[in-house]
């Protein structure tokens, strides 16, 4: 008796399976939209939903379930164009050292937590500044001297010094989200990690690690009951799966990250899909550790800058990237445009000059350097291109691709002479300059932010300029000071800015936002009460 599968049976089986797969693939319309349910997919998972600890994913998600006292206009990421949110009016007194906000009345919090009052606002910021919470955003609010609540709907902030950018800190972004203390939340450290209580159009009803965050509409939302009844944030790591899901109608919108042009074009050509690529304040720079040799020599830093060809890095991600010539992206308030930068500080690709500078610095026979890099494509891929550029001028750069947390830790521990690092911040030059280039942000200090190069502590210093930008409220003057600071940084070259990756989003045309989406501050579509899935 013959055992096993014969050639004919095998071919029949394979043919049948292939036909079944093809039928599934070609099924017209796929699963289709579910009216009232918005299914969003991204590869990113939130580290926390508590806005005091949430960055990127968690922060963007908070925009759906929480409000600030002020807010970005829906769909916009322009900080100079904010509007009232939980506050119905505000004023400033005492020479810019006191800010008073009048809250809307009758704003109901999620899960039956009751009306939001000034006590909740006070509690939110005191909790944020509580050392037990170790919020990464606490530093944004150290200027608050005290918070007063004269009545149920009035909250008054007393500042230590005038803060020209205080209002931006009250917006719905990184620490500015107002929480409701709720009935059971009396522990600052734990209760809000995954079950936050806000006042936004959607409320968090379930979190499934590695799988999904489920939000349902907040029936008592103060701007009106949202038209969408359910917002499903699905975690799907593979971009191909997300794209197929969107094309088949199993998903309503997806995060694209940085896609190659051909794939982006194929999505744009789909009659059922819209693609959004908002501008970005992301600034990717090569940070030189001024504490380590040979990076303490400006000629070596300049040689590296001249060796790198920005165009090739941008081409790698084209069209979802653009070259960056200053340490603050021009899409942020005060970021320098190319025409604002003198030719000598643009560090355009010039391998001959790079070799000459290296020789002058005593490295005629070349250099050997080492760095670590995150596996994330927008960080890892440019460094591989830079690796080739540096090799062409005699610099052998050894690249260690390490896990994201090891990369982040290593880049803050003086382990590598240069580190490729970048990120989004509040889209204002002050936030970028303070966090990356102020001496108080030095990674070796307890107040550390992301000043990896130790700029301001060892070489150069623009602290006073940065502090002045933060003190004044005249935007024109802020921009002028930011320009001076950036040009000085380009002269001292603690970091070489090279590109801004743009991230894309795509949604099916049956999704109507109710506003134009151009928000550079989020990593997902943020919906409000007007949004619909038809």
């Amino acid at each position, binding site marked *: 008796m013959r*055992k*096993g599968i014969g050639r004919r049976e095998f071919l029949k089986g394979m043919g049948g399976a292939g036909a079944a797969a093809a039928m599934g693939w070609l099924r017209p319309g796929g699963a289709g939209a579910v009216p009232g349910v918005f299914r969003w997919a991204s590869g990113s998972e939130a580290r926390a939903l508590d806005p005091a600890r949430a960055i990127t994913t968690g922060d963007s998600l908070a925009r759906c379930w929480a409000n600030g006292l002020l807010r970005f206009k829906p769909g916009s990421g322009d900080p100079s164009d904010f509007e009232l949110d939980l506050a119905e009016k505000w004023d400033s007194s005492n020479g810019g050292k006191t800010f008073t906000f009048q809250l809307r009345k009758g704003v109901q919090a999620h899960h039956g937590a009751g009306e939001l009052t000034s006590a909740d606002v006070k509690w939110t910021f005191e909790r944020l500044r509580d050392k037990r919470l170790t919020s990464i955003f606490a530093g944004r609010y150290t200027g608050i001297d005290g918070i007063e609540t004269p009545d149920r709907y009035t909250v008054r902030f007393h500042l230590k010094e005038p803060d020209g950018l205080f209002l931006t800190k009250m917006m719905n972004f990184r620490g500015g989200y107002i929480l409701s203390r709720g009935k059971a939340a009396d522990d600052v450290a734990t209760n809000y990690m995954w079950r936050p209580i806000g006042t936004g159009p959607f409320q968090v009803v379930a979190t499934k690690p590695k799988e999904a965050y489920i939000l349902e509409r907040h029936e008592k939302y103060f701007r009106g009951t949202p038209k969408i009844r359910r917002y499903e944030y699905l975690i799907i790591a*593979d*971009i*191909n799966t997300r*794209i*197929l899901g969107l094309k088949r109608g199993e998903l309503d919108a997806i995060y694209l990250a940085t896609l*190659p042009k*051909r*794939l982006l074009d*194929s999505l744009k050509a789909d009659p059922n899909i819209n693609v959004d690529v908002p501008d970005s304040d992301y600034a990717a720079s090569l940070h030189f550790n001024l504490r380590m040799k040979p990076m303490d020599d400006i000629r070596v830093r300049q040689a590296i800058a001249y060796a790198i060809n920005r165009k*090739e890095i941008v*081409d*790698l991600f084209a069209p979802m990237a653009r070259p960056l010539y200053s340490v603050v992206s021009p899409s942020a308030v005060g970021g320098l445009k190319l025409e604002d930068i003198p030719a000598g500080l643009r560090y355009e690709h010039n391998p001959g000059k790079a070799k000459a500078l290296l020789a002058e610095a005593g490295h005629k026979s070349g250099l050997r350097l080492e760095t670590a890099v995150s*596996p994330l*494509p927008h960080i*890892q*891929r440019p460094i*591989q*291109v830079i*690796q*080739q550029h540096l090799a062409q001028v005699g610099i052998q750069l*050894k*690249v*260690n*691709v*390490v*896990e994201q947390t090891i990369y982040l830790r290593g880049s803050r521990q003086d382990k590598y002479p240069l580190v490729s690092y970048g990120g989004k911040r509040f889209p204002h030059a002050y936030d970028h300059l303070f966090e990356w280039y102020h001496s108080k942000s030095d990674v070796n200090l307890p107040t550390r932010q992301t000043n990896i190069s130790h700029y301001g502590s060892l070489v150069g210093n623009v602290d006073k300029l940065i502090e002045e930008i933060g003190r004044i409220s005249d935007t024109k003057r802020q921009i002028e000071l930011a320009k001076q600071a950036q040009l000085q940084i380009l002269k001292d070259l603690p970091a070489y800015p090279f590109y801004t990756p743009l991230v894309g989003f795509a949604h099916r045309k049956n999704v109507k936002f109710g506003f134009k989406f151009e928000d550079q501050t989020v990593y997902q579509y943020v919906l409000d009460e007007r949004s619909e899935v038809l």
Partner: protein
Amino acid sequence: MGLTHLFRGSRSGVVGFGLTAMLLLAAVFGPALVPTDPNLQSIANAYAPPSWAHPFGLDIYGRDTFARVIHGSRVSLFIGFVAVVFGGTLGTLIGALSALEGGRVDRFVVRATDILLSFPTLILSVIVIVALGNRFTNVVAAVSAAMLPKFVRYARGPTLAIREQDFVQSATALGAGKARIFFRHVLPSILGPVMVMAALWVGIAIRIEASLSFLGLGVQPPTPAWGTMLKEGVESMLFTAWLALFPGLAIMVTIFGLNLLGDWLRDVVDPYVMSLARRAEGEGAAETPGAAPAFSREELARMG
């Protein structure tokens, strides 16, 4: 026994031998025959489809995928073979000596091996990489570590049996030391089967290396590695399938070839199967211990 005789009736053995030989030749001579620098980038031509100039197309950096697959074979085969040689040598020594020694040492080795075997091989490699960092030598160490407990267990079993054999007892009675017993009596007896398993496990070692590279824990860029290439290709698979296809095929063909070769080697070296083969041909039924049924050539081939 000539190669022709050995392969007779085992088409899978021929295929395995052929594929493995081809891969070894590609790894040894390929880089000389494919002069294109596998790391040379041409961003402007990134994602170019296969053509006469670039039979496997260009990758996301505009690097020649064919050159990278060929150069990647060196990395994969080197790590595969070296890890198995390291893990195999050390594991065999530990397993055999532990069995010979017996007592507490043997119990300790058995428990330690059980603990290591309780981890899937890939997880064990990841643990080693995370502990040591992902440098090339550490990747070899990680894959070797994954192989080690398998060899310990594989060498220990037969040694326990050999230890009780009359010829070993006689040698002990004549005053032979443990070292002499090990090298003169135990090692020659277990070496054949161990080498067969080593051939089979080279494929597993290559798969582990490719998996580590796929996870971003393998050899560092820009060194070409099949797993890394596969990962980069998968990300854009919807419109540039060839980027994942060719390194994927290379991994598949290599493991397939090595498995077939290992299976064939096992049949050649295993005295039981060989005696069945000879019996089927009427050459040496008397050598077969016990009353084994006669197998047809087809059935024997299927056993392979």
